[in-house]
C-alpha cells in the first residue's frame, strides 16, 4: 500500500535525505521518498502491518529531525 503524508516543519534538505535513507531500510517498507520541496513523504509498505510500520517511521523521523511532524 502506498500512502502520502504531509510533513510539517521539515527544515533541512540533508535531514530529508537522511530520513529517506533510514525509512527505506525498515523491514516491510518497499519504497519511501521524502520530498523536502513539497514537504511530503510517500511510504510504500506492507498493507497488513502498515500502521505498525508507520509508528516506526515516526520514531525514526523524530530521531533525525526532532522538529518535524508527520501529519497522519
Amino acid at each position, binding site marked *: 500500500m502506498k500512502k502520502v503524508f504531509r510533513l510539517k*516543519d521539515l*527544515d*533541512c*534538505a*540533508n535531514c530529508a*535525505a*537522511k530520513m529517506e535513507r533510514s525509512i527505506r531500510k525498515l523491514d516491510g517498507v518497499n519504497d519511501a*521518498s521524502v*520530498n*523536502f*520541496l*513539497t*514537504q*511530503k513523504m*510517500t511510504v510504500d509498505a506492507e498493507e497488513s502491518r502498515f500502521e505498525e510500520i508507520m509508528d516506526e517511521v515516526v520514531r525514526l523521523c523524530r*530521531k*533525525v529531525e*526532532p522538529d518535524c511532524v508527520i501529519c497522519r
Partner: protein
Amino acid sequence: MTRRHKLTLARILIAFALFIVAELIPLPGIWKLCAFLVPYFLVGWDVLWRSLQNIAHGQVFDENFLMSVATIGAMCTGEYAEGVAVMLFYQVGELFQSVAVGKSRKSIAALMDIRPEYANVLRDGESVEVDPEDVEVGEIIVLKPGERIPLDCVVTEGSGSVNTAAITGESVPRDVTVGDALVSGTINMNSVLRARVTNIYADSTVARVLDLVENSSERKARTENFITRFARVYTPAVVFAALALALVPPLALGQPWAKWVHRALVFLVVSCPCALVISVPLSFFGGIGGASKRGVLVKGSNYLETLSKAAAVVFDKTGTLTKGEFHVSAVHPVGMSGEELLALAAKAEKYSTHPVARAIAAAAPAEPEDASDSVEELAGLGVRANIGGRRILAGNSRLMEAEHIAAQGGDGDGTVVHVAVDGTYAGFVVISDQVKEDAAPTVARLHRMGVKAVMLTGDRRASAQAVARELQMDEVLSDLMPQDKVSALESLMEKTSGAVAFVGDGINDAPVLTRADVGLAMGAMGSDAAIEAADMVLMDDRPSRVAEAIAISKRTMRIVYQNIVFALAVKLTILVLGAAGYANMWLAVFADVGVAMIAILNALRAMKVDGVGQ
C-alpha cells in the same frame, strides 16, 4: 515568517545585545568567559542539545554537532568572542535559509496549484457547493465569473471567455459558447455559465495534471543523485581532514596546539554540504514549476536534464507539425463519377477514427447504416469493407500492392487514399492537411540552439518531402508503418551523439514516446495513453512549446551548474585558506550559510521563465 521563525529572531537579537555587553565590560579571565557564555547558551542551546541527541542516536556528522565542536573549540582556545559570534552568525544564516526556502517552496508550489476547491452543482433546482469529487457525470454545474472550472464539462447555457493559462500557458482568453467543451483547471472570466459535467474529478484534466506534477520530484536527475552521494562523502572527509590538521602538525612537527586546533575548527564549519543539498533540487523544482507555467508539464527532473542535452528533436508529422485537420482536396475517379467514388470511400471509412478517414466521411453525405455491413481496419494500410454486398478497399498504395491491384497516379501534396471495388481499381482521393503557423519558426529556433529537427511520418516520400522543405527540416523519415517508427527512431538515436527527443500526439506513437530519450506528448487534452507514455506533456498543441521547453531546461541546468561550481569553489578556497591560517571562523561561517543563501536565491531564478529563449 512563522511563529517559530519570529521566536528565533527574538532570541538572536537578545543574544546579540548581551554579546555586545560582554564585549564592552572589562572583566578578568574566568568572568569574561562567564559573561560570554550567557549569550552563547541563549542563542545556541538548541544546537548543542540537538548535537547531544544526535550523538545518542549515533548520527555524528550532523551540522549541529559540527557547529558545537567548532564553537566550543574556539572557547577552549581562548577565543571567547569568536565562539559566540560564530554561533550567532550561524543561527542568523539558518534562519534566513529557512525563511527563504519556505518562501520559494511556497511560491513554486503556488505556480502548480490549480486544484479547484469546490463545485457549484445544480441539485433540485438549487445551486449547492460541494467537493468536486462528489460530482457525477451528467450533472449541471454553475460557473461564476472568476471561478476555477472544477471539472471537465460542456457549456449548456450562456457564453463568455475562459482563461486557460493555468493549463495551457496560453494567455489569450478563449471565447466559449453553448456546446463548447471546458477544461477543468481553467478560469471562467466574466459571465455566469452553466455546463454539463463530462468527466468525474479523478478523470478530469486538472486531476491528471496535478497527479503528474506532484509526482515529478520522485524521478531525480543524475546531477541531483550525484549531489546526494557527494554530500555523504564530503562531510566525513572534511571532518577527518580537520582531525588530521589538528593532530599532525603539533605531534609530528612540534607546532603549537592552539594554532592548529583553531585552523582545524575552520574546517569543521565549512564541512556542511547544505548549500548544494538544498539549491540543486530547488533549481530543478523551480525549472519544473516555471515550465508548468508555460504549459509544459515535466514528469521528473531527470527528463529536464536529458532534454537540455537534446541534439535532435524528432517530430511526428500529423497533428504535431500539421494541424491534423484534413479535408478532401481532390477526387480522381476511374470508371465512375467523382460523387460515386467519394460515397463508396465514405461508406468504407465511416467507422474508422483515423483523421484521414474522418475527412472522407465528412466530405460525402451521410447515409443510413446497414446491419450487414462489415469493416476491418488494417493498421498502417487502410480498411477492408463489405458494403451492400460489394467488397471495398480503401487505403494507401501498400494496401493496393498487397491486394495485387494496380494503383494509378498518387503524386502531389497530401495523403492519397486509393479505392478499389470488387478487386477493380476505382480511383483515388487526395486529402491534405495544413502546416501549423508556428512550426517553421520552431524549427528555425531549434536550429539556432544547435538542435537538429527531424520529421517522422507514415506519409509517402513525396508529400513528406514537400512539408519538410517548407519547414526546413534537417531530415525526413517517411513511409513508416506504426511499428517501423520505433526502429527508425532507434537508428537515429544510434547515430546521434546527444539525446534524442520525440514529439508526438500519442495517436499511434505511444511506443515511440516511450523509446525516445525524452518523449513529449502534445495536446494533453487528448489521449491518456500519450500522457502515460510521455516524459513531458505539452498542454496545448503548439510546436513552439518544444523549443521553449528546451530553452527552459538549458537554463535550469545552467543554474544548477552555477550553484554547484560556486558552492564548491568557495568552500574549497576557504579550506585552503583555513589550512594555511588565512581564514578565520567568520569567513568559514560565511562559506557555509552565506553560500547557501546565494545559491538559494540563484535557484529561484529557475522558476522565472518569462521570455526565456525567445
